[in-house]
């Protein structure tokens, strides 16, 4: 009986661990008198959420990849490529819907190549996706002729607007898209056979194969989904910048991975959650936001985020150690 209760407590801690971290970060800035007013404003929360959209979309796919025991270093390049593709298509006169679809599709294709190469060549994801990082970035620059692509303003550019056009939306459409997909992916991970297979591949790939799981197919699907989310993130990047910029989001893949890890994802595979990753994204966004308000230089933010990752992962490690 007490074992059961302890189990529930453990479970609650697992879910709320990152959440407590988020509240802690918000509370710290909320207690600093100089920025208290500005920081706690609803408008500020909205803008933090809007700034989180791109990393959050990347993290949705990355969570699957990390749980399966892999890594996707090409995420940020893929985002840049998709933003360029969307801009290029719309600039060339394609209807906005087609531009958006094309961006997402190209992102998915890059992911599909990642998954196929990893499974067919039997190479580690780090190597393949690191190579793809260069390939996708290069392709983006090539297509864009090594400069920004201007595109006419369309509804696409309102996806990231802080004050959305139909005002009853309250928040940028991009935020709603993230929330919707987060719910879908959480259900997929926890309640579908595919989700179960993602965990199984990350926990023990040989055991998964022994259980009749088509591990190669699962992995290709995982990287394709990650690519599709990067494509969508790229569209959001284009929406925000109103141009297709092949040099955007350099290094963003590390922010995405950091968010997943802060949220309880294990690079050894088998662990992670959508909710955790989303909280990880918010922790990083609020930190950046608060630091900027304090007028702290960029390097301070970088140091703080580095420290936060170490603290989050050690706490996680400690908790697991206790459990075992």
């Amino acid at each position: 009986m007490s074992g059961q209760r302890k189990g529930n407590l453990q479970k609650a801690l697992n879910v709320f661990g990152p959440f407590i971290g988020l509240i802690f970060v918000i509370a710290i800035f909320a207690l600093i008198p100089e920025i208290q007013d500005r920081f706690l404003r609803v408008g500020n929360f909205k803008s933090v959420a809007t700034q989180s959209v791109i990393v959050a979309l990347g993290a949705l796919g990355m969570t699957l990849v990390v749980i399966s025991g892999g890594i996707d270093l090409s995420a940020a390049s893929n985002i840049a490529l998709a933003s360029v593709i969307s801009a290029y298509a719309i600039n060339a006169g394609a209807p906005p819907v087609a531009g958006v679809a094309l961006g997402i599709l190209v992102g998915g294709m890059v992911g599909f190549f990642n998954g196929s190469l990893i499974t067919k060549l039997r190479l580690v994801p780090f190597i393949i996706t690191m190579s793809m990082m260069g390939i996708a970035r290069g392709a983006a620059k090539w297509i864009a002729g090594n400069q920004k692509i201007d595109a006419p303003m369309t509804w696409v550019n309102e996806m990231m607007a802080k004050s959305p056009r139909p005002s009853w939306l309250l928040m940028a459409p991009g935020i709603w898209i993230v929330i919707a997909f987060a719910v879908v992916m959480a259900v997929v991970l926890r309640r579908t056979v595919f989700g179960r297979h993602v965990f199984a591949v990350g926990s023990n790939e040989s055991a998964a194969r022994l259980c009749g799981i088509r591990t190669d197919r699962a992995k290709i699907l995982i990287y394709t989904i990650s690519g599709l989310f990067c494509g969508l993130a790229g569209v959001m990047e284009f929406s925000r910048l109103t141009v297709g910029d092949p040099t955007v989001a350099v290094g963003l893949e590390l922010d995405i991975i950091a968010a997943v890890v802060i949220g309880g994802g294990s690079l050894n595979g088998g662990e992670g959650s959508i909710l955790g990753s989303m909280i990880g994204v918010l922790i990083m966004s609020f930190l950046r936001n608060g630091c900027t308000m304090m007028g702290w230089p960029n390097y301070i933010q970088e140091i703080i985020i580095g420290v936060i990752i170490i603290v989050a992962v050690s706490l996680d490690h400690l908790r697991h150690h206790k459990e075992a």
Partner: protein
Amino acid sequence: MTDNSAAPVLRMAQVSKTYGATRALDDVTLEVRRGEVHALLGENGAGKSTMMKILSGAVAPDSGRMFLEGRPYAPVNPLDGLRRGISMIYQELNLAPHLTVEENIMLGRELQALGWLDRRAMKARVREVLASVHHSEISPEALVGKLSVGAKQIVEIARALLNKSRIVVMDEPTSSLSDEDSARLFEIIRGLKAQDVSVVYISHFLEEVQKVADTYTVLRDGRNVGSGTMDGSSLEDIIQLMVGQKFTEMFPRVPHEKGAVAVSLKELKGVRMASAVSLSVAKGEILGIAGLVGSGRTEMLRTMFGLDALESGGLVVSGAATAKAAPWTRIKQGFGLLSEDRQGEGLALPMSVADNVTLSANAPYLRHGLLSLARQQKAAADWIARLNIKARSPLQKVQGLSGGNQQKVALARLLHQKAEVLLLDEPTRGIDVVSKAQIYEWMGELARQGKAVLFVSSYLPELIGVCDRIAVFYRGGLVDVRDAARWDAQSLMAAATVGRAPGV
């Protein structure tokens, strides 16, 4: 107590250790004399491992004292224990596969000259120590990852010997060794005794213990329930001490009847098999597969299941010929494989009991494409009860279970997926006597239900005790198949070690 009046080289007195709510060791006393082989016996979870962890210095006891050659001994960590002359050889080999034999043996004790590694001196030391265990054929330059399991075991032992140990602890040293390698190990143990080194020997193979040990101590539920000399005790006495009750039947038999042919192998040859094999197994039959490690038994099962690529030939499954197939196709055809590598391949250790049991057949829990977690857990709870698995709940992670219970979870997965042809590779390796008997009983029950069971084992008595027919592999090929009644331990051993057996 023993008739040896010499003072013990090691005395662990009134040692207790509690983990959370579990009392792992309760006031246990253990005495080991100089130059003796002392068997530490008990079921899984009896406290043997905790006892040895305390001895090595990996774990500190809550209370109790230890004396080494009369002097107080309280190691703060394993290195400390090593320095005082206690070496551990674990069941899972602790070797670095990418390093050479020499580098592994000298690891942490590298010889230096003027700050540079003195390779020549180290190689000489390694050659010396390998020669002392009569294994000079192992090259110091060989990569450990490329050695056979038996040779790796020798490297582990060599490392322990280099340490000038007073006491060598061997935890299930033969569980992955062939009989030939085991015999060599016993030779080495006799050599250690001659050098006045004491050995604490942990094993589930009681016959082997009887051969190699001088004295024994039995632990049950964290208590010392008896010690004695091997000469003065029968196996039955020891088993009874271990299980705490009168142990009625080592090999419980469930009557079953042989039916139509379930699967036949037609000149089946996988890429890792030395030669093609033709064999068939019927519904309601337990077919034993004997042979040394590396004789091709495991490779045959893996080829049948599609885990190893097929080179030629094929399988006839309930009348229909099938050639190449992947594991998921074989599962659909009713096959289920229990891996010999329980932790590395058989189970997803970080996942729950419920997930592991249902992993290969999720379909019954799907409602509109979504898994019903409640139903899944209920089904798992059902299997936990049926196989008498000691787990706190279906949500407990498999890594927290004992070896015997982990194996039952792996077996439950095959039963849950309703496998009709069960390929069981060393299903009783490293698990306790009671769990073993339960698994034998389940195999009989499966045969009674008309399922075909292939049972690979290195332990001949269990093959003879459980199987209807036994096939023997030797050097990659099938040499003989007979009814179990027409085999005995000698003829099986002869077939497995020289490739032919006298007719019975």
